[in-house]
């Protein structure tokens, strides 16, 4: 049935007004979204935003205060077991039984998921190779490095080839090489699954996700593609220009004279370099690059650098997540 939903591109995760109140404070506040096959959803937010709490409700670990979630068509609160069968879950920090070995842990998980013995053995070989833990299969888990533990947790999550993969901070605490490996792994599984991963690393969202949701204080503040997220940056589409042997005032006055330019910012430069660094912001949607290159040619400027800014994700993230605080 899960396969069929997948083929029909039916939503694999449907969240309706999901809310969790601890004591009196909502940790997750009326969160609503759906995820369809092929999507890799990056769940972004500052610490304490409610990412883990949302994931715990999706996986049937925590009951919601109100609202609900359907995984592969199964209401989580009504039939948690059916929902859990569709899900592979890596909890935050990848908790594993310390006194087990990866081999015995994977065997336990395969049995807990009622996998047939031959199938379990074949899948174990596959995922062990995929995450690269062959060398530590017989070692106690409490003696493994953080990177290996995370990979064992991932192997346990994907062992039954789940339709829905939920990963809570899968790269947290890993070194840059390990981070890249885990991202590669996630990308390689993206075609045939729905993946939701939480992170507070913005580059990660661009590197692996097709969609980003930002939550803060339990509320969804942004839902769109990583490119749309970047486009929200104030510097997105602005043109950066570095000139040699020109006065900053004169250059910015000339740029301001262009109809397409709304304002010009003079950026601090290196005093030894004698370069003027400018950033021109567009007035509307009209392209900026063409008029600015024409102007530079007319004025005979010595252009050392010219680029269209992509915008800063950090800035957007800060702006979006601090707005709510200001409103209160």
């Amino acid at each position, binding site marked *: 049935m899960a396969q069929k939903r997948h083929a029909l591109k039916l939503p694999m995760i449907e969240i309706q007004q999901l809310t969790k109140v601890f004591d009196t404070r909502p940790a997750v506040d009326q969160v609503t979204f759906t995820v369809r096959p092929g999507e890799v959803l990056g769940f972004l937010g500052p610490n304490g935003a409610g990412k883990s709490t949302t994931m*715990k409700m999706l*996986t*049937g*670990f*925590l009951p919601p205060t109100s609202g609900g979630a359907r995984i592969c068509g199964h209401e989580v609160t009504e039939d948690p*077991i*059916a929902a*859990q*069968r569709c*899900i592979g*879950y890596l*909890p935050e*920090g990848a*908790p*594993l*039984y*310390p*006194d*087990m070995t990866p081999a*015995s842990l994977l065997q*336990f*998980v395969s*049995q*807990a*998921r*009622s996998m047939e013995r031959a199938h379990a053995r074949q899948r174990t070989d596959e995922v062990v190779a995929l995450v690269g833990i062959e060398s530590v299969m017989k070692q*106690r888990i409490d003696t493994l490095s953080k990177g290996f533990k995370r990979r064992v947790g991932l192997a*346990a999550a994907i062992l039954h080839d789940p339709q829905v993969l939920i990963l809570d901070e899968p790269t947290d605490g890993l070194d840059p090489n390990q981070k890249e490996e885990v991202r590669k792994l996630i990308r390689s599984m993206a075609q045939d699954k729905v993946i939701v991963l939480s992170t507070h690393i913005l580059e990660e969202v661009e590197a692996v996700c097709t969609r980003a949701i930002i939550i803060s204080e339990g509320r969804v503040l942004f839902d769109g593609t990583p490119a749309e997220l970047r486009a929200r940056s104030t510097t997105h589409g602005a043109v950066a220009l570095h000139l040699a042997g020109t006065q900053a005032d004169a250059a910015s006055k000339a740029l301001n004279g262009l109809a397409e330019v709304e304002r010009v910012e003079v950026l601090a430069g290196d005093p030894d370099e004698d370069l003027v660094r400018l950033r021109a912001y567009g007035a509307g949607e009209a392209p900026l690059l063409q008029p600015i290159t024409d102007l530079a040619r007319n004025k005979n400027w010595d252009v050392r650098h010219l680029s269209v800014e992509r915008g800063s994700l950090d800035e957007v993230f800060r702006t979006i997540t601090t707005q709510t605080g200001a409103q209160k």
Partner: protein
Amino acid sequence: MSLALHNTRCVFKRELQGYFATPVAYVFLVIYLILAGVFTWYLGGLYEQDQADLTPFFSFQPWLFLALIPALAMRLWAEERHSGTIELLLTLPISPGQAVLGKFLAAWLFVGVALALTVGEWITVAWLGGPDHGVIATSYLGTLLLAGAFLAIGACLSALTRNQVVAFVLSISIGFLFILSGYPAVLEFAEAVLPEFLVGAVQQMSFLTHFNGMVRGVIDARDVVFFLSLIGVFLYANTVIIDSKKAD
């Protein structure tokens, strides 16, 4: 139904593996066997007795279990909470009830193994003189049921906290109440302050009342039912606790 059985067995097997993967099991076994021996032969004065039987051995079991079983049971859920593995366990397609039962049965079997290792004492009294083997057999059965009751209490209270020491202290205290309620001093006190039907109830809740019958060689269905229902009640409470507060 068979799936529930499969899941319970799956948790049971993992738990049992866990006992023997750590020194906890061996330490428990050694301490239990030494203490059982010391109590029986020195404090119980088995040598000085005229008749060869294991009465001293069995009469010390409630007190041994009172201290040792909470030590064994305190980790059952508190450790899962502490290390976060409870999230791994309960997001697998296994129900809380199956997890509770699997863990309990593994612990019970483990105590059963410890008990089986005391068979040396049985052999010794058999060699010293002709004991009543029927009485010894019913005593072992009673001891196993008593252990199950202590374990169910310990498992349930271990689910309340992530702190093993708290779980340990709670289980000893509750276990102590269940033992004490059979003592004459307590019953006299109860008679003084409680209406009569409640005095009976207090006495009925006593582990000793039900245990002593079996140690005398009498298997009364009521005693067996008492222990089994007590186990059932505490395991049910354990399940409710786990189900309602998984994440704290």
